[in-house]
């Protein structure tokens, strides 16, 4: 039985991407302080745990990164939320992956695991989902441009099923999506990165520039223009 959260609890669900971004960016330690500040829960679903831990434990290149995520779970920073609404996930996946046709074939653009976080967040009334992944985000927030994007990339006509596209987007329209770069922005505002401010009058700007680009270069889907916009906004007090 899936239950809605009580109003006093703030919950964020994490997709795989932002955790990878933060670990690779050497910024994962921020999550502990952010969680304290939020006074709620940071959840991952079993599929996200599999990608973050179980799978890389079998790959030497990312074994230590997996151990870092295990530590985050052991320390209670991340919690695994097991009660995934499987039926909802399947329905959403079916809608997403039959929304576009190319050469007469439906295009599977989203993987089931990626849908778990968002479907569970919606089900229990979480405050948001942290997702660096561009495709699912675009599909939820801007589905008409998704068609144009696919056509541009394949140089072929993509036939959309507008009803399915809209059904998918409307089911998920109430989900707030943020990215790892916004978490870093919150950390900056909270002063959690102040130890890194270099000497000089533009120290804050340099820190912000460095840390935002670091996030991009480790996997957060964000444009250069967005980084500029974030910088301007965060530097204003």
């Amino acid at each position, binding site marked *: 039985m899936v239950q809605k959260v009580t109003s006093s609890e703030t919950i964020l669900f994490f997709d795989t991407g932002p955790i990878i971004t933060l670990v690779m960016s050497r910024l994962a330690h921020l999550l502990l302080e952010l969680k304290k500040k939020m006074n709620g829960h940071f959840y991952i679903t079993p599929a996200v745990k599999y990608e973050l831990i179980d799978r890389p434990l079998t790959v030497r290149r*990312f074994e230590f990164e997996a151990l870092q995520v295990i530590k985050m779970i052991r320390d209670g920073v991340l919690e695994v939320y097991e009660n995934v609404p499987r039926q909802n996930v399947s329905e959403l996946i079916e809608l997403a992956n039959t929304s576009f046709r190319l050469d007469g074939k439906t295009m599977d653009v989203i993987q089931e695991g990626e849908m778990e976080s968002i479907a569970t967040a919606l089900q229990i009334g979480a405050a948001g989902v942290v997702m660096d992944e561009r495709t699912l985000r675009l599909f939820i927030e801007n589905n008409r441009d998704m068609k144009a994007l696919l056509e541009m990339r394949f140089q072929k006509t993509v036939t959309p099923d507008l009803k399915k596209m809209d059904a998918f987007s409307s089911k998920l329209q109430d989900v707030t999506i943020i990215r790892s770069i916004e978490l870093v922005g919150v950390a900056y505002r909270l002063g959690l990165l102040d130890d890194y401010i270099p000497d000089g009058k533009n120290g804050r700007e340099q820190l912000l520039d460095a840390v935002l680009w670091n996030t991009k270069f480790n*996997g957060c889907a964000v444009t250069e223009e967005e980084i500029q916009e974030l910088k301007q906004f965060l530097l204003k007090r």
Partner: protein
Amino acid sequence: MDVEIKKEILFDLAKSIDILKIREKSDVEQLRVLSDHAIEHVAVYKDLDIISVTVLIYSIYKAYSCIGDKDYATLLKELERARSSLEKNQFGPYNRSIKVLYDIVRRCSSETKEHLQDVMQAARIKKGTALLTKGLSIGQAAGLMGLSNWDLQQYAAKTTALESGPVKVPAKSRMLSALKIFGVR
């Protein structure tokens, strides 16, 4: 095997044979172009056979210079054999030929490791990144190529593959949402 997939694999094999028939270094770039062409079919069909051939072609491209003359002759022979078997729907012999072709690349790869990865792993990452540029999600692309999300994200983040598409929600609005969640003014 789906008719369209078979047609595409036969096209890829025939083209590879054509490129490799006479060993000229200048031709090798054509293999990369061919594997780029094949990746579109991977994105649409998500079929293991087509993935296998696409990764193989890119691996041959990367391993080209270290394949010895004897192996090169075997490589050509097995490409011909794979094509002929597939034309006759003889899937057992076809799969055996693909395995021999992979063994040739693997032998070469163990001699010339590229950035501590074998050539085929590098090929899977490269082709996985190409799938991202076609609009597939990281999970989809990594899953198809048999990669972990860590592998693909780490590599793709250094390319333009993760560049966002059109932006509807302004960065400032998203930032404000994040600040609100954390109760920060």
